[in-house]
């Protein structure tokens, strides 16, 4: 049995994979241009491989991945919907490949597109203004937190706390901390929601912001939202929407109409830009009118001459990354929104909700729902009864790999014992959903019939379960130049 080789392990001295254009100017020894101390004594130990070596290696390892193109991928909270190829084609049009400091008069097409995207996001979210600057959702959260802080400070207030439900994504508290805030957790009630009464207890004049995910990470709509907004605004705080679950709301209800002041959108979720194995994403942030002057980055505006240009908001909190934003990702998001239109967005959300409820109705007798009521675009089930019979959520997830499915998110949200968080998205067919349900029901039977098969899963993957504890105890994070990995 041989390990899958790393590119360094197929390297052979003298192989070349690329040819540079010949120098058509006079060459000169480096010493004449750079001081000796500045020059590297030996070239860095990069691999020496041919072009075919490169293509074959990366094609082979790519085949070791499960992905949306090959497999149902119901990873909860991640909205693994099909990524249309036409948006890829749009983003690759050569005329979009401009330098970030391209003169304004030479980048009018890009600016018009970005302006259109801002407008559509404002409509989608019921917001007054959007910045397209943040690199990803978590950076969008950080942006929103800084905007809130700047707004309070402009009113002469220094508040110290951000309130976050216990069901929230980990990025929320981490972003709040990065913004210099102390995090206060509010517990979810028996219905899996933030109850207005529990919220009232932690809200006071020192709270800057309440960050809410709606629908929350249990896939449930926070039905106390209007009262929640009132409680938050009554103490002079702002209401933030973590837009991770916007795929349940698009075209159905607008966050701004519900009282949210700030919202971030994950383009790689609702707007179907490819997840890329973990990025690049983009995290546009929308705000109500009173917060618009504080947005980071730039806004694209249309002048009286109908020309488009970039403007730094007057009291901007600054910049979070270099240049305008992840334009290549934003072009895909624009194309996706234009392809769907308002009606298509609504149809998507309705279908995502239909698919999640269908899974829920077929699975609820076997895997106990955390809260037994209709869900939005994802459903959270529990494998606690399976755990008593000898297989944990992790075992079930690993066994699903043998059935050819990517597992749901497991052990999140943290408040659900043995959580299975399933988000099917709208692009999956009933046939696929049925096959997935059948697999889960079969695994449930296997727990009694052949428990070791479940507990030892997966059996059909390129590698089995890895010893992550040892890996973290003595981390091997790079390949040593001498080639010995142990």
């Amino acid at each position: 049995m041989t390990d899958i080789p790393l590119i360094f392990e197929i390297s052979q001295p003298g192989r070349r994979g690329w040819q540079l254009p010949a120098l058509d100017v006079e060459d000169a020894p480096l010493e004449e241009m750079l001081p000796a101390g500045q020059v590297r004594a030996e070239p860095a130990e990069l691999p020496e491989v041919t072009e075919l070596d490169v293509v074959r290696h990366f094609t082979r390892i790519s085949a070791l991945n499960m992905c949306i193109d090959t497999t149902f991928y119901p990873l909860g909270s991640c909205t693994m919907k099909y990524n249309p190829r036409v948006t890829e084609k749009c983003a690759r049009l050569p005329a979009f490949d401009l330098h970030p400091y391209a003169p304004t008069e030479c980048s009018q097409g890009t600016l018009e597109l970005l302006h259109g995207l801002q407008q559509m996001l404002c409509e989608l979210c019921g917001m007054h203004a959007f910045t397209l600057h943040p690199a990803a959702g978590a950076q969008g959260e950080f942006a929103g937190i800084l905007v809130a802080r700047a707004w309070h400070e402009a009113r002469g207030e220094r508040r110290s706390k951000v309130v976050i439900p216990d069901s929230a994504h980990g990025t929320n508290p981490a972003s709040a901390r990065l913004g210099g805030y102390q995090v206060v957790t509010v517990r979810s009630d028996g219905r899996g929601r933030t109850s207005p009464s529990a919220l009232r207890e932690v809200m006071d004049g020192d709270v800057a912001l309440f960050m809410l995910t709606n629908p929350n990470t249990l896939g449930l709509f926070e039905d106390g939202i209007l009262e929640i907004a009132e409680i938050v605004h009554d103490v002079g705080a702002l209401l933030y929407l973590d837009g991770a679950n916007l795929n349940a709301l698009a075209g159905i209800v607008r966050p701004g109409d519900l009282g949210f002041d700030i919202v971030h959108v994950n383009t790689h979720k609702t707007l179907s830009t490819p997840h890329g194995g973990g990025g690049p994403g983009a995290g546009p942030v929308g705000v109500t009118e009173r917060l618009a002057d504080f947005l980071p980055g730039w806004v694209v505006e249309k002048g009286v001459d109908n020309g488009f240009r970039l403007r730094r908001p007057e009291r901007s909190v600054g910049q979070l990354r270099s240049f305008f934003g992840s334009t290549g990702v934003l072009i895909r998001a624009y194309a996706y929104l234009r392809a769907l239109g308002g009606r298509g967005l609504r149809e998507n959300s309705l279908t995502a909700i239909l698919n999640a409820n269908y899974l829920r109705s077929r699975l609820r007798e076997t895997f106990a729902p955390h809260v037994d009521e209709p869900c939005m675009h994802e459903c959270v089930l529990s494998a606690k009864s399976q755990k008593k019979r000898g297989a944990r959520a992790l075992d079930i997830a690993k066994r699903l790999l043998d059935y050819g499915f990517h597992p749901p998110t497991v052990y999140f949200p943290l408040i659900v014992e043995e959580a299975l968080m399933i988000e099917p998205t709208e692009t999956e067919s009933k046939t696929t959903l049925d096959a997935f349900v059948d697999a889960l029901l079969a695994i449930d039977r296997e727990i009694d019939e052949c428990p070791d098969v479940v507990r030892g899963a997966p059996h059909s993957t390129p590698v089995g379960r890895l010893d992550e504890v040892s890996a973290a105890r003595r981390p091997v994070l790079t390949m040593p130049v001498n080639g010995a990995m142990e």
Partner: protein
Amino acid sequence: MDWTGSSPDERRQMLAAIGVDSVEALLAAIPRCVEGLPGIPDGLDEASLLRHVSDLAQRNRPAGPGKCFIGAGAYEHAAPAVVEALISRGEFSTTYTPYQPEVSQGTLIAGFEFQTLIARLTGLDVANSSMYDGASAAAEAALLAIRYTGRTAVVVSGAMHPEWLCVLRTYLSGVGAEIRIAASEYGRTPLGQVEACLDGNVACFLIQQPNFLGQLEDLRAAAEAAHAAGSLFVAACNPLALGILASPGECGADIAVGDVQPLGIPLSFGGPYAGYMAVREPLVRQMPGRLVGMARDAQGRRGFTLTLQTREQHIRRERATSNICTNQALVALAATIYLCALGKHGLREVARHNVVRAHRAAERLQEIPGVRLAFDGPYFNEFVLRLPRKARDVCRHVRERSGIWPGLDLGRFWPDMADCLMVCVTETKTREDVEALRAALEDALQ
């Protein structure tokens, strides 16, 4: 377009299984629903969409091959065709963060290879599997240094990219850290300035290599100065330049960061790019971002998995080392493939060609009457020219007459440098390209 998955009949079957007549029946708890989104135009079929977006693209006027001499943090380089071909594979682009390592070895192996390549280029022990971009990586390095040392100030070279400085200010504003800027002189960071800023409260000293003005800094001396004050030394390096320049590790850096955009990543009006971060071993548990590590399965097979995750937000929440979650995996993959295709000697050759072409170009452009190099220090592929007129006017004139974008007008950032033009010459610029630039500049300055 409609990408939903089921037929009308299947939808009816699903509704029946749920026991409702319509999906809307499940939405009773939602207040203030909307009927539609009139501000979003009606959907388009594929052909009409392509036509519409192509029309927008046509409204851009790109400089075209051989005509863009602007660098300033985003560089035009040639990437092998295999890069785009391979990153376009759905197996890479339509998968997510490798939470299930058994079915994500492709992403994980590529991440481990990226970490190894960056560690070798920077001469440091460990690299992570990507950051958002170079600027935010520099800011995260400062935060790392603050956590590690328990100190609350950072010293930054004034010759760092002004947008990176802005990002640093934003990131550090949250924790209230103090930023001291060591002003640059003659295009470089004078050590006297740096030493005056350093004291026992300084967590780190950050410098950029080459710096924003294209000049090479003396990393060894900078490292000594930082260490003398007990501070960490952070070098923000162009990774392509590291093909030929002494590595930050051998110069004494504790942390290296940068943007991988120069490794053949498309300019794409500012992104997506990717950042990198490499550190000395003792700092690894304070690192932000994803780390891929080697592991074994029960049969002893080698595999790769995300590791040291207890640093991260999904476990540690408000005590995490960073809020970073989704970052730039696919861009890091592009950089990985670029570095592998170029290889050990290819990267060095590309870097060398950049040095040679930039120096030949600088010589030619200085032959224009009234034009001279603003700084006399060594440089990699970018240099500043002092012109006898405002750079802004010269840029416009050159662009209108020849279609060439001759460089960046530094008056954009500093009013007292309004007569300075920063020119970048990479391996993509031929002798004829530079001759055309020379002629156009000469014409503009007559």
